């Protein structure tokens, strides 16, 4: 999972999760991204680089604001640009499924 994907997944996770649960969700998202068809994974990675450029610069400058990143991700959820909306939808779907299935399993 790329740096920006990890950050986005972090913002999409429920704040109620403890460290172990966050790690389990992140691990599921990471393995699912890794097992995607290569061309789809390449597309997601390209979007991560494009969408994450600004956050990367802010991070390097020590100015990455989690709240601002969260607001950005929220905006992208309803973006009129289909690839942007689908990018967040994909990551959000994986996070949601893992969060809720892990909760259902009680693990």
């Amino acid at each position, binding site marked *: 999972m790329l740096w920006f994907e990890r950050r986005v997944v972090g913002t999409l996770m429920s704040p109620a999760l403890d460290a172990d649960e966050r790690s389990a969700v992140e691990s599921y998202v990471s393995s*699912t991204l890794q*097992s995607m068809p*290569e061309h789809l994974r390449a597309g997601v990675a390209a979007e991560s680089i494009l969408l994450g450029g600004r956050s990367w610069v802010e991070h390097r400058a020590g100015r990455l604001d989690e709240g601002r990143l969260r607001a950005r991700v929220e905006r992208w959820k*309803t973006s009129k640009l289909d690839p942007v909306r689908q990018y967040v*939808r994909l990551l959000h779907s994986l996070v949601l499924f893992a969060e809720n*299935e*892990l909760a259902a399993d009680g693990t």
Partner: protein
Amino acid sequence: MKPPVETLDTDVLVVGSGAGGAVTAAALARAGRTVMVLEEGPWVDPDALEPFSLEEMVAKYRHGGSCAALGRPAIAYAEGRCVGGSTEINSGLYHRLPPELAEEWERDYRIDEFGSEALDRYADRIEEELGVSRLPGAPPASSAVLERGATKLGWRSVEFSRVFRYEPNGRAVKQTMARTLLPRAIEAGARVVADCRVSRLVRRGSRIVGASCDQTLPDGSSRPLVVRADHVFVCAGATQTPALLQRSGIRWNIGRGLKMHPTVKVAARFESPIDHGGIPMHRVTEFAPSLTIGGSASRRGHVALALADSDADYADALAHWEHVAVYYAAIRSEGSGRVIALPGFRSPLVTYQLTEGDMSRLARALVHLGEVLLAAGATELYPSVTGGIVARGPDDLVHWWNALTRNRANLMTVHLTSTVRIGENWARTGADSFGRIWGFDNLRVNDASLLPAAPGVNPQGPIMAVVARNTDQFLADA
């Protein structure tokens, strides 16, 4: 240092172990042929994992369930990748091919001996062997919802049969291929090799002489394997079969004309808790086969996904997820797609283009789905449309007509077919009436790829009947 290449010999090589491969292998092994089945995925004990759980997705689904056909909109799809193929992960609902479709395909594609009478003979045999039955006793609440809603609206609904057997203690056991035909094929002498991906078929003129494979070993390493065979049946499903043929340089009408049942979903909230263990067996058939309404897997994870698809505030509904179940409406689509093997990539590119007519049918499907769920007593409906409003009464459904656009629809499917169509109409098909690939003496396809179109019903029954018919023909020819 490269590991040595092991070479194995067999009379018949079957690539894939799902509804196509398992039926083929069992019939051939019972007829005394030497059969080897190669399956790309692992052998997973059918009882080891909770159906539709996260663990099952990781272990049994291709790409962990993250596949999509590209297009506007993209359509997510799911396929099995394990011994038993998609029969291990589907709902187990069973239908025969509607007779009018058999006749239409027979006529349009000039398929020999394809009448419903002929296919029904094979369906009889399969149903007897697997055990196709209705639920003993009353249906669960999630299924009764569909019957209740349809009755209130004066629409037809049916409880469909399933490929299930019921144990004396009442436990329902899905008769997947890993549980039924594959063990029986092994008993009859077939060999099943799991974790073995066929990279390409080896050609010599108009014959296939074998297959080059990579087998993953228990320690995670892989080794090359060559299987020499007199006859080859490719049964890897509607995306992987054409991809393998293309990788092997076989391209005539291969991978074109992909068909599917594009599907919209609704998360429906009810006053009372609803069961979440299985898939509802009722279907609303008022508009079938062009449009079918049914129920989906509704574990907590699925409920969360369906609620989130609407982009409405769903926190309260998710907090009461036991009251929420997921339902779908699937259409027969005019559109079509392609499967293209990309050089250097393991996975094929899958595309699908919906027509304007399809989009209109999907909007109608969504509204009808809403109508039946509200009639059944649902109090809130969350559509799989970004920005689609939560419907709490019939008046709200009016907004769904215009909400479902190419940029807003979140679609999925589990039924992919038609990438190597059969028939004597050479210009439109990739294989003859019995699945033999044009231009090859000993190469056959025997899976969902052969169906000329998506049948409008769960395709496992039609696939198995066509495959059994083709296998009989092969044995008769031999």
